[in-house]
């Protein structure tokens, strides 16, 4: 009976949250940006790295978004920048999620482990994240990997605390007690009974995690320790446009719109899912 109810709720969970106006708007925004990134090679045949004499040009038929300070096609750079951000997020977020969840499960094993794990989360949250970014880059040198590592580290406490809270609530429920009374071992109760019921909030955390990844990638580019030029990334293009804001404000327009659409869409999805779970 319980499994049936849980199963039904699960199956309805995603649509239930996302069918709202907010959820649909979020899916549309994120969908358009992600598709544009995935289909970049089909949408444009301009090389995002090819320089030309036509610097800081306005939009035209050949260059829909104009060109940047080195005469590179901005349309192509923004689309390939989306790809870079997607690739970084898709690598870093799952690593951070798995590490965070592993720590949360470890915390559930004993009181001492719980205290230790909580301190680890506090430390990761309290330490100024962008100084961590500077330090990691100083060790590894600038490039794509430091960005991935910093994002993964930053995602750990979010997932970990969410799952820990879920486990604490679920393991006091009657079904967990019943499983204990039925003779199941602590590990079995935790992994087979409590864990599957505690993962729902992690879906919301997933949407938040991707917008955090976009944030960190951009912030690191602004600090000069992000994805190494000339490779395009959303934050990189935006930070390069800063120097030309007063003379060529159009340069910043496209990356600005794409980043805003992406993070706003992810936030709307997270909020819609959150309401879907609470209901």
């Amino acid at each position: 009976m319980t499994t049936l109810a849980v199963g039904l709720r699960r199956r309805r969970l995603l649509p239930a949250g996302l069918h709202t106006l907010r959820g649909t708007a979020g899916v549309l925004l994120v969908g358009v940006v992600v598709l544009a990134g995935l289909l970049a090679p089909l949408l444009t045949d301009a090389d995002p790295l090819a320089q030309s004499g036509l610097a800081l040009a306005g939009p035209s038929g050949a260059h829909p978004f104009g060109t940047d300070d080195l005469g590179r096609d901005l349309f192509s750079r923004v689309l390939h920048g989306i790809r870079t951000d997607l690739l970084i997020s898709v690598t870093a977020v799952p690593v951070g999620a798995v590490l965070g969840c592993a720590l949360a499960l470890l915390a559930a094993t004993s009181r001492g482990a719980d205290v230790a794990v909580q301190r680890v989360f506090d430390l990761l949250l309290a330490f100024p994240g962008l100084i961590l970014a500077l330090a990691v880059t100083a060790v590894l040198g600038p490039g794509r990997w430091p960005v991935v590592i910093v994002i993964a580290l930053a995602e750990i406490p979010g997932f970990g605390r969410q799952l820990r809270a879920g486990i604490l609530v679920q393991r006091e429920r009657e079904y967990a007690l019943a499983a204990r009374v039925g003779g199941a071992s602590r590990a079995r109760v935790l992994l087979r009974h409590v864990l599957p019921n505690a993962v729902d909030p992690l879906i919301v955390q997933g949407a938040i995690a991707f917008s955090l990844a976009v944030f960190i990638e951009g912030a690191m580019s602004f600090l000069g320790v992000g994805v190494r030029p000339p490779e395009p990334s959303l934050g990189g293009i935006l930070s390069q446009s800063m120097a030309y804001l007063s003379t060529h404000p159009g340069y910043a327009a496209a990356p600005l719109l794409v980043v805003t659409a992406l993070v706003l869409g992810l936030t709307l999805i997270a909020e819609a899912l959150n309401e879907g779970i609470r209901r």
Partner: protein
Amino acid sequence: MRTFLLRRLPSGLLVLLAASFLIFLILRLIPGDPATSLAGPDAGPEAVAAIRARLGLDRPLLGQYLGWLGDLATGRLGPSYAIGGEVADLIGDSLGATVELTLGALLLVILLGLPLGVLGATVRRGPVAVAVRALTTTVLAIPPFVTGVVLVLVFAVTLGLLPAGGHESILDQPDLGVQYLLLPALCLALPSAAILGRYLKDGLERALAEDYVRTATALGISRRRIVLRHALPNALPPAVTVLGLQVGQLLGGAVLVEAIFAWPGLGQLAEQGVLRRDYPVVQDLLLLLVAVYVAVQLVTDLVYTWLDPRIRWE
């Protein structure tokens, strides 16, 4: 209050000690020897060894660590390796700018967060409610570097009202200083203001559902007075805790905002220090940040007990 401080201070000092050890170790993990990079590419091994000896880098790690702690205790921070000048002067010069930025942002967080929370809890429908909700969501979602670029585009490029970046000390030239401060402080403050507003809204909604509010309403007390004099004082303590946590966020966020607006603060100094392997600057700076964080936590707890007399200083 004295017992409260006596109980809390040792754990704070312990956190500082642990942090100092971690900071020291992490910096030593960074590959590359500061002496080699200081000596330059043409220097022979003797020159590098001489620099190592002068900087004390030839001593065992534990000795270096204890030496650093001793210097800190006696207030001698020593010279920087690469940036040049005394560490104390470098930090002193940038500290003022960052404190200015953080305090300005904190003021804006309170000025924006309070009305946002009160409006959110009291106006439940209509265009104002929709606007407050949309504003909170947007501000929370959008990263500071996007807000920063938009603020510059609107207020500096299009309207030409405020400078796009740079810094003038607010103490030397108050009118000019405020103009330079406004955009970076706003950029730094917006997300925290939204968070404060959200917590305050939740707290106020809970407080407004309490029995004493119904009693006050039955007594004919005006809605305005009930919200501001009855419900708000009860909703403030948790909001102050959030505000305390946000101070930590503001300090961390300052690194990014300083980079966007070319603001010569601690964040810029930290960036230079890490990239140029200037151990003394970076380790003193990081420890300072942790110390401020610990102090803010302590002050937050003190303010909390002051706002909520039910909690005793024990």
